[in-house]
């Protein structure tokens, strides 16, 4: 009896030692499995430890890929079993465990399979093969005798199956089942944590990528909005310039018509006055000749009052002639400037246009500004004469107004290749450097509210641009400004086509 007690105690001690060892191993797994978020490390730890400490030589972990399929993600002790194999949910031990979400321990797999296979063969031999389904290969040992398959659950949700197999019957005891269940539960949590972490990392990466993409789009959007804004601003500026030019063209047309009317009305009486003055001059000459006749009393001929009167006549007559000539010239300039009867593109002598303009702005230059006409050889230029005259008025008026007291305006012309070059230089105060970029903007002026609207150079720029020419400005404060206009001798063909729609001719 005492011997039996001792043996019983020894078994209990042995059992206790075994349980203690198992607890240590489980503790080891629990501690290490939670120290990593790497799935491969988790698989290695679970399967390796099960083999090393519990003798589970053949184990496998499958994860639910979708609601119908499990995929092998880790395998231990299986030769020629590549990862990635699949098991349909509901097929075989593993698939049935996944379907029912219940642990299954089978200790006599091979004879059961053999029994089923025998029945199958008998049915095939009996001609009942059509009643049979397909044999589905499942991962694991093909000659396994024992198997424990445990569903990997997170709360009520299946994430996979953990399976251990043996080639021996009844390998797995209740204790093995309990151990495997604990390890499976630990593995399920660790796998889920790692997958969630990986998912979070992927989402974070995707979010970062999306953020970068969005940022890039925003940057592009800003660029596009900026570009569009610039385009709109440019369009707006062009519209404004066009509007200004239309208004100015209208004004010029009215002025031209007015000037032509005035010229016509004045031309006849001035012609009469000029003609009469000439007749008068010749009549006085006749009287003077008559007085020289010896028959005429010398006493009367030498009368001082008579001589004084003749002198007055001569002076008045000369002034009258000069004045009427001046008026006639102005009228001619007005008619030339307005060009009411010549609204089409034509060959124009630019020097004539410059001269006419100088005549018209004579009141601005008279007695204080010397005008130097440094004209070179310049063929006629194909252009809208009235518009080019408007350019000359603006340039010469600006030059005259830039000279506060006395100074010089030098007009230089020459041909440069296919272009006519007209340079207007003044000795005025010059333009500040910060204003140089803006002088062609509509509304920009330094002359003050009552002097100008700031449209002259803007219109000038637009007219020259329409003629496919260019205008350049150089200026030095205190020394003066040079504006250089380059006009093509013959505008390009495209311009000729366009000008029907974009150019508003005077008149």
């Amino acid at each position, binding site marked *: 009896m005492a011997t039996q007690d001792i043996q019983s105690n020894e078994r209990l001690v042995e059992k206790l030692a075994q349980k203690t060892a198992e607890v240590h191993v489980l503790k080891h797994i629990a501690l290490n499995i939670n120290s990593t978020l790497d799935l491969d490390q988790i698989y290695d730890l679970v399967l390796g430890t099960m083999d090393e400490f519990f003798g589970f030589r053949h184990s496998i972990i499958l994860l639910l890929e979708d609601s119908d399929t499990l995929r092998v993600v880790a395998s231990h002790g299986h030769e020629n079993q590549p990862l990635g194999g699949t098991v349909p949910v509901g097929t075989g031990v593993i698939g049935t465990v996944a379907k*029912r979400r219940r642990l*299954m321990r089978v200790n*006599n*797999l*091979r004879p059961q399979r053999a029994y*089923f*296979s025998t*029945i199958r063969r008998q049915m095939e031999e009996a001609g009942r093969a059509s009643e049979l389904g397909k044999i*589905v290969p499942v991962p694991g040992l093909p000659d396994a005798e024992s198997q424990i398959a445990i569903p990997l659950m997170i709360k009520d949700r299946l994430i996979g199956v953990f399976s251990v197999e043996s080639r021996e*019957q009844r390998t797995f005891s209740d204790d093995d089942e309990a151990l495997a269940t604990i390890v499976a539960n630990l593995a399920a949590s660790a796998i889920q944590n790692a997958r969630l972490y990986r998912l979070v990392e992927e989402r974070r990466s995707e979010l970062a990528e999306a953020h970068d993409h969005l940022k890039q789009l925003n940057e592009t959007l800003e660029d596009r909005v900026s570009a569009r804004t610039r385009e709109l601003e440019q369009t707006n500026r062009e519209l404004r310039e066009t509007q200004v030019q239309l208004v100015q063209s209208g004004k010029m047309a009215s002025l031209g018509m007015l000037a032509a009317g005035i010229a016509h009305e004045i031309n006849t009486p001035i012609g009469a006055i000029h003609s009469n003055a000439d007749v008068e001059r010749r009549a006085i000459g006749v009287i003077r000749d008559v007085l020289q006749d010896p028959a005429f009393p010398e006493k009367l001929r030498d009368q001082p009052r008579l001589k004084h009167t003749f002198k007055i006549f001569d002076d008045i007559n000369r002034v009258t002639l000069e004045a009427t000539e001046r008026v006639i010239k102005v009228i001619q300039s007005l008619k030339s400037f307005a060009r009411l009867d010549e609204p089409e593109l034509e060959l124009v002598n630019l020097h004539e246009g410059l001269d006419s303009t100088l005549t018209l702005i004579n009141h601005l230059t008279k007695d204080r500004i010397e005008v130097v006409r440094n004209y070179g050889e310049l063929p006629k230029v194909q252009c809208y004469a009235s518009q080019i005259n408007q350019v000359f008025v603006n340039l010469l008026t600006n030059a005259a107004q830039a000279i506060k007291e006395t100074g010089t305006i030098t007009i230089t012309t020459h041909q440069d290749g296919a272009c006519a070059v007209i340079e207007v230089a003044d000795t005025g105060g010059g333009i500040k450097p910060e204003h140089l970029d803006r002088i062609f903007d509509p509304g920009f002026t330094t002359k003050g509210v009552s002097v100008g609207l700031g449209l002259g150079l803007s219109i000038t720029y637009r007219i020259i641009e329409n003629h496919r020419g260019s205008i350049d400005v150089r200026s030095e404060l205190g020394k003066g400004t040079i504006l250089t206009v380059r006009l093509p001798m013959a505008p390009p063909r495209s311009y000729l086509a366009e000008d029907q729609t974009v150019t508003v001719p005077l008149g």
Partner: protein
Amino acid sequence: MGAVELPDQIKPVMQNGIPAIVVTCSADGIPNTTIISQVYYVDKTHIALSFQFFNKTIRNVRENPQACVALNDLEGNAKWILDVQYDHSETEGPIFDEMDMQIEAIASATGMSGIFRLRAADIYRVRSFKKVSFSPASLQGVTHGDTGYTKQRASG
């Protein structure tokens, strides 16, 4: 006499995968022998047989609840003879689920899902059992428990 209890060493015999022999008898005394793939251990006093096909065995035990189950114990070089009595059938619950699950697991992998389908888990109470050794010296086994047949014969 107290209820007979199955020893633990019969569990691996039930799980060894060797088909067992079940003998039943109709109400009019015609015996029937059949082979089944597995006998399930329910508890110390009960076993379960799978009811998959409506065959003579099922018909017999519904008429006459007495049955005899012979288990082959190759490791023990013996045969276990169980004298059992049909008690009831279960179509749900843990015993049914476990049996159904095993059948489904094997049948689904062998393309036999349409053939093997558990209709019910038939629960039998163990009236007596005996382990009969294959060795010539001990062909006569020791009977444990009370067999109805014996009583009937003794009283008859």
